[in-house]
């Protein structure tokens, strides 16, 4: 499916997060947990920055280079994981995220990339 056809397939929630991304950060404090996944040559690059206190994410921020789905998934996840424990973040349900954002099957890799970035941010932590 080409770009033109896919434009018709952006769900309202994807468009909303693409147009008004939540929790975009300029940089990440040294005290925060940060992680990234992907590369520009792979077509998407996602970075998360998590402020964690007592094993709970108090604030999540992101930056992303990629398609509208990539940006929307990362933006949506920052809202979803705020207030959650680190261990919950490490076991996110891919089906649920894809379903919430009404992602077409060929865009599930955007969720996988975001999950990888979150795992990278939380690696070495165990609560």
């Amino acid at each position, binding site marked *: *499916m*080409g*770009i*033109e*056809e*896919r*434009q018709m397939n*952006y769900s309202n929630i994807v468009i909303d997060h*693409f147009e008004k*991304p939540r929790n*975009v950060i300029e940089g990440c404090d040294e005290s925060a947990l940060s992680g*990234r996944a992907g590369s*520009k*040559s792979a*077509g*998407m*690059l*996602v*970075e998360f920055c998590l402020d964690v206190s007592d094993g709970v994410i108090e604030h999540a921020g992101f*930056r*992303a*280079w*990629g*398609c*509208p789905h*990539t*940006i929307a998934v990362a933006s949506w996840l920052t809202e979803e994981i705020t207030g959650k424990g680190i261990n919950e973040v490490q076991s996110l349900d891919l089906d649920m995220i894809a379903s919430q954002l009404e992602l077409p099957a060929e865009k599930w890799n955007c969720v996988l990339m975001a999950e990888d970035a979150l795992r990278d941010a939380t690696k070495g932590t165990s609560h």
Partner: protein
Amino acid sequence: MKPPVYMDYAATTPVDPRVAETMMRFLTMDGVYANPASSSHVLGRTARGYVEAARNQVAALLGATAREIVWTSGATESNNLAIKGAAHFYADKGRHIITSRTEHKAVLDTCKQLESEGCEVTYLVPVKDGIVDPQQVADAMRDDTVLVSVMHVNNEIGVIQDVAEIGQLCRSRNVLFHCDAAQSAGKVEIDLSRMPVDLMSVSGHKVYGPKGIGALYVCNEPCVHLQPLIHGGGHERGLRSGTLATHQIAGMGEAFRIAGEEIDAEGQRLRALREKLWNGIATVGGVQCNGCLQTRAPGMLNVCFEGVEGESLLFALRQLAVSSGSACTSSTNEGSYVLRALGRPDHLAQSSIRMSLGRFSTDQDVDVAIEVIREQVTRLRTIAVC
């Protein structure tokens, strides 16, 4: 929902109302609907007269004679007829063809087909700005070279090739020269009485005429022979059989007539609009023009934006009807092969958009485009991770 600002005239143009009005006269019972091949009655002969008048109009824009114009279904068919037709007819002379990597797919895929039939094809890589140096063509020529095919204006980046020089070179080596002029006819001056071109492809729908009609110029002096692709009836001097679509042909003729009348004024106006557009979007920073900025068709601009991803860019700019790559290849979602051939890295090739202005583009359209592009590129860069 408000329709987007149309900036994709290189993909196709709306039919000029004057052309549509002309075409209407060739469809219904009260019009000239007869088969132009029906020479046995006056209605057919009348239709034939209009077909020949249109042939003259197309020839006039190209500086050709009417008998050198062969009707086809469009530039893709013209390219196929020119390249396959020449390769097949002159197969005994040689089986080597020279073209460029930045040609339209209608040329490249045709050459690939000929490779599968045993021809050898040399694909030249244009120099940085997208221009094929005639010396590259000279260096690639062999004793068995039968055809060189280089386009006039590139469909993605709009640069103008030195077809006069390449044609001269081909003539001096007794090699046929085909030129795909789908993007240049009516926009850039063409005078085949002075340009040594043997075969030239043109299209109706790029010049505010209808889709589904095109023409191939086949040089009469020196006389070029082609093996036809379509048989059945011997129309068009045996080169392209099939009932002539009078309404399409009359429309293309009228479109070419108007283009000839307005080429200077329109070119000047579009050049000014394009410069305004370029100057406006360049201020956002990190913008590069793909292809030589000076030697290009008046309304075409192809730019890449550093720090933004292609699909997001295109979606963010949906208020503008622009194109990523050419219309014929953008649906594949690959980075443009033309831009990659020019050495652009994949991520920059993918964040490139082609904006092509045309007859109905306005100053206000350009203002809107500048504002939207500046706003959206800045926004996407704010989100982007380096």
